[in-house]
């Protein structure tokens, strides 16, 4: 099983426990140790096939890196926004446009948003989904903050209100859509292959 690539301890321990139980059962039925072991290992099945099935569940040790990547992507959409919003604010208030943080922030936000969409489509672990959902709500809320701030500031004109409202609506739609997809995407049927890695 190790040479076939099933390296995470939990599946290995389970398969080992199963093998031992089956061998014991064979020995109780009167078979010799060697024959019992051969029958039991044959019954377990092809390691490569088992590894392929475990890969679909994400239990070959790749769930954590994927979850971390998705969380970084969420953080980056906020980072991109925190570069774009001040640049736009300075441009509006002082007429000074700093292109570098604006373009860098837009690029970062788009790349990160694309990574979030990809990660949401391939995420299968229910525990990781809870963490990701929490971060999505936090990221979405970040973009709603300007709207709340505008409510408390007296000098905001209609253009400013419109911008904040559109930003908040877009954020809620994007992150809300990602949340919906995260919890309602259909799981692949047993036996069907899907590229998740």
């Amino acid at each position, binding site marked *: 099983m190790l040479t076939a690539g099933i390296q995470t301890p939990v599946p290995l321990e389970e398969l080992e*426990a199963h093998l031992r139980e*089956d061998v014991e059962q064979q020995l109780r039925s009167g078979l010799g140790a060697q024959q019992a072991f051969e029958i039991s290992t044959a019954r377990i099945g*092809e390691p490569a*096939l*088992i590894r392929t099935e475990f890969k679909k569940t994400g239990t070959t040790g790749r769930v954590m890196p994927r979850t971390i990547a998705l969380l970084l992507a969420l953080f980056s959409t906020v980072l991109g926004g925190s570069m774009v919003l001040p640049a736009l604010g300075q441009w509006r208030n002082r007429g000074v446009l700093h292109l570098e943080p604006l373009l860098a922030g837009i690029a970062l936000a788009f790349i990160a948003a694309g990574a979030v969409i990809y990660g949401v489509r391939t995420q299968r672990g229910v525990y990781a989904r809870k963490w990701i959902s929490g971060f999505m709500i936090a990221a979405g809320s970040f973009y709603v903050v300007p709207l709340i701030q505008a409510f408390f500031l007296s000098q905001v004109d209609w253009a400013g209100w419109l911008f904040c409202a559109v930003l908040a609506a877009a954020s809620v739609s994007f992150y809300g859509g990602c949340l919906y997809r995260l919890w309602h995407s259909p799981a692949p049927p*047993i*036996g069907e292959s899907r590229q998740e890695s």
Partner: protein
Amino acid sequence: MIRKELVAASAEPLILALLARGESYGYAIIQEVKARSDGKLQWTDGMLYPVLHRMENKGWIKSRWAESETGRKRKYYSLKKDGKTAMAKHQAQWSLVHSVLAGLQKEQYV
């Protein structure tokens, strides 16, 4: 011999139904399925565990390690609330397919 597609499709509802009766572990689940089907439903033993892990990832079942009677570690699985809902959906779908097939078979002999 039962087609592998049917064996694969029936794995989840069978596991859910077995766990609805009480906590169990992988080896016992396979033995139970073999016994109930008179050996006609032959699962490849190792292939059960990815299915169990997938169901655990979906939040349908939970697991715990415990000691068996022989002192060895064994992983037990039990049904969660979402698993009961999933089981009910599976059973409704299988009942539907069965009722359509049964109806068609009845018509053949009328």
